[in-house]
């Protein structure tokens, strides 16, 4: 599509944004894949419409404030990227645009406060843990709280699992086949620390030495995807420093972190850390891809046959095009049968902090996902992303069902240990 975006003024990110607009031919083939278009049925809330609106805002024929409501409603699920034959790198437009807009936008006071709370707690495990505890107390006061803060409270879990912290290094069992560094993640490490333990155990069992840099922090993806580019860069820069260079891969078990870390080169484009960001991003691998490429030892059969529905996290399936690897790993487990979820390409509505910022759409998508999952009657749900796990669990429970929902790696870990899958 033709445009007159002032590329030079916008810097290196401007170039990426312009390129995405350039390659969009306005054909509409992405519309059918877009969760917001599917639920809202209007062109402004479609990928094609958003690209057009962002273009108009960058060109100055619409104001940023005018287009933001529609850009805000975008889940960043990247289903449009998978659907687009023209190769539009929508993410290269969205993240820089959000960052660009954040600089000038005015948010209502309570909304700004809520975002500040998210921004200053979620990326920091210790603060987030305290916030969860405080939040539990605050629930009593829910009716008194401003609406902008309520969805945050509703998302908090009833209790936090206790778990021993991971050591700095975990040795392999048997011969060493590779050496990796593990990103422990921020939110996940608080909400579901056992996923990291499972990751480390499965790696070790398959001959991989795992280094877990103690001083690592949040990868910055959450901030990056919500337009907080400066914070994202600060957080990322820290990890660029503290992660070792002598590893074969940097492993993540959270889809959102993986996709965000793959965006570092654009985030640092034209900045001093650009080269380091390139090298780092190049090493980042989702746990499923790493294990699949490495080849894993077949686990012993599950005690009884289990039907597992694998949920494609958008940040794996669309943002990183990882769909086959987790499935291949799961079917190596004897007695495990995979079932496909109808409308499997559609986002579950979790999408980072989306369920905090757009609770209505998030709820609709969550319910639709739960409905689709239950339609194929699985006994266990598998997913490769903590956000999806939380969201799906909430909506499955909302339908008065209590299916266990486990991370792919947890399933492998339990299979190796001979533990059953049918509980959480």
């Amino acid at each position: 599509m033709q445009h007159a975006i002032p590329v030079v003024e916008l810097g290196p990110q401007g170039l990426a944004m312009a390129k995405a607009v350039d390659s969009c031919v306005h054909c509409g083939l992405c519309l059918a894949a877009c969760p917001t278009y599917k639920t809202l049925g209007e062109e402004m809330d479609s990928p094609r419409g958003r690209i057009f609106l962002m273009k108009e805002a960058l060109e100055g024929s619409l104001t940023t404030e005018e287009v933001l409501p529609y850009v805000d409603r975008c889940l960043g699920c990247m289903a449009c990227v998978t659907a687009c034959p023209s190769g539009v790198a929508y993410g290269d437009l969205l993240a820089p645009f959000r960052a660009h807009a954040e600089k000038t936008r005015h948010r209502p006071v309570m909304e700004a406060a809520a975002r500040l709370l998210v921004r200053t707690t979620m990326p920091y495990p210790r603060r987030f843990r305290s916030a969860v505890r405080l939040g539990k107390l605050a629930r009593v006061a829910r009716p008194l709280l401003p609406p902008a803060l309520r969805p945050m409270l509703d998302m908090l879990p009833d209790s936090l699992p206790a778990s021993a912290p991971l050591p700095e290094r975990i040795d392999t069992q048997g011969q060493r086949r590779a050496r990796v560094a593990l990103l422990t993640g921020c939110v996940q490490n608080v909400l579901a620390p056992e996923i990291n333990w499972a990751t480390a155990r499965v790696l070790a069992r398959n001959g991989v030495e795992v280094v877990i840099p103690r001083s690592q922090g949040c990868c910055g993806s959450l901030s990056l995807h919500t337009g907080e580019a400066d914070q994202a860069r600060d957080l990322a820069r820290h990890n660029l420093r503290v992660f070792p260079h002598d590893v074969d891969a940097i492993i993540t078990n959270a889809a959102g972190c993986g996709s965000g870390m793959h965006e570092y080169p654009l985030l640092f484009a034209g900045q001093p850390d650009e080269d380091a960001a390139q090298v780092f991003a190049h090493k980042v691998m989702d746990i499923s891809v790493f294990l699949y490429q490495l080849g894993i030892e077949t686990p012993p059969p599950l005690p009884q046959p289990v039907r597992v529905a694998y949920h494609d996290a958008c940040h794996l399936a669309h943002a990183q095009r990882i769909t086959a690897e987790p499935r291949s790993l799961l079917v190596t487990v004897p007695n495990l049968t995979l079932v496909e979820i109808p409308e499997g390409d559609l986002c579950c509505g979790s999408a980072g902090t989306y369920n905090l910022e757009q609770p209505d759409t998030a709820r609709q998508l969550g319910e639709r996902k739960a409905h689709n999952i239950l339609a194929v009657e699985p006994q266990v749900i598998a997913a490769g992303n903590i956000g999806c796990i939380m969201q799906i669990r909430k909506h499955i429970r909302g339908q008065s069902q209590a299916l266990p929902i486990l991370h792919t790696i947890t399933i492998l870990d339990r299979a190796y240990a001979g533990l059953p899958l049918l509980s959480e």
Partner: protein
Amino acid sequence: MALETLISELTARIPPERLLQQRPQLAPYESDALTSLRARPRAVLLAGTQEEVIDAVRLCHAHRVPFVARGSGTSLSGGSLPIEDGIVIALNRLNRIIALDPRQRLAVVEPGIINLDVSRAAAPHGLYYAPDPSSQPICTIGGNVAFNSGGAHCLKYGMTANHVLGIKAVLPDGEVVQLGGASLETSGPDLTGFFVGSEGLFGVALEITLRLLPKPEAYRTILASYDSLAAAGQAVSDVVAAGLLPGAMEIMDRLAIEAAEASVNAGYPRDAAALLIVELEGEAVEVDAEFAHLRRVIERSGAGEIRVAADEAERARIWKGRKGAFSAVGRLSPNYIVQDGVVPRSKLGEALQRIEALSAAHGTRVANVFHAGDGNLHPLILYDGRVPGALERAEDLAGEIIHMCIELGGSITGEHGVGMEKRRHMPAMFSPDDLALMSSVRRAVDPLELANRGKMLPAGQTQVTAGQHEQAVTDHG
């Protein structure tokens, strides 16, 4: 102001979230898939019920305000381009299947349903909806009806018109009519056929009765590469001459192959100058017998590499590449015009050679990907809209190609419609008498020219501005 009165009446009936009037709400509706044309409508109505559509059309008629029906806005000819002093009636939310009768093999649908969703709904009954435009994951049945859309597999089964049995429509004066019905046999004039392909000039389709077909038992899909487009074109004639009627016969040239490969890795031979896709479908025994025959014909046609899809996944990839090809060409060029000329199948080779020559003479790249079996060409003329004069040069070349099609005894459009984009070529195809007749038929249905005003019929038509009496104005558009 009649327009403002209309808007205030609509505002009284329609909640604001479904009557779009703000700048950022309207901007994304300015173009369909032809982005060189833009127009901002006064409002967009996201119709929630058929009654709302009928109401809106009646109000438009009462206030003499033009309207444009819109499905998914994938028209390549500016068919759903808004009118500045008019409104857009968006039908994409009107997407229910009202009835699906597997015994009679019928579906009654609302116009906003997506083409592929009809087949999805019919699949559990072993049925599908045959016309398969490449845009089928998103284009609507209403849009298909308006353009009599085709697709790769229309070679064997015919275009949309062959699959629409009945239409309930609201005419531009607000009258609601039922044309045709559930039966294949009708008496009297074929009014359904009259509506199909009318490009929205006869009002808005509200309910469409579609014919469903049993899903073919077996498919065989062959890829063959050629060292020239003309040779691939000749192979198409050979296949037909051999008495075979494949489900689909499609050709892609080097640029289209390159774009599609970059997009889906379909496994097309990358070094070929042209690629022919032939698909047989039907009962397994029949397909097997025909396949042996087809293979011999292709082998003798001078093909380089010949490949047969090994399984359903490979077949799906082959079609994904072909069906995404228009959009994939966006990888090669920021802008392009998709042309839609038709030539007699026997002249395919000649037409392709002449397109190559024209492209070279104009120094403008042309990618070709088309329904070869129907002689329906789709030259994609690549240009960079930022270069001054590039669009005009591309339009000139497109015009020359279209004139060549007419000269060879063909037509200016196969399936994408005249819309805005090919309106100027109508006089080359039709005599003034023909055009006058078309206009008078149009005015018999829509004297005020409210429905999709300015589309299809060329300059010099009767135009009525809000509140005025009829007067002939010359439109230099």
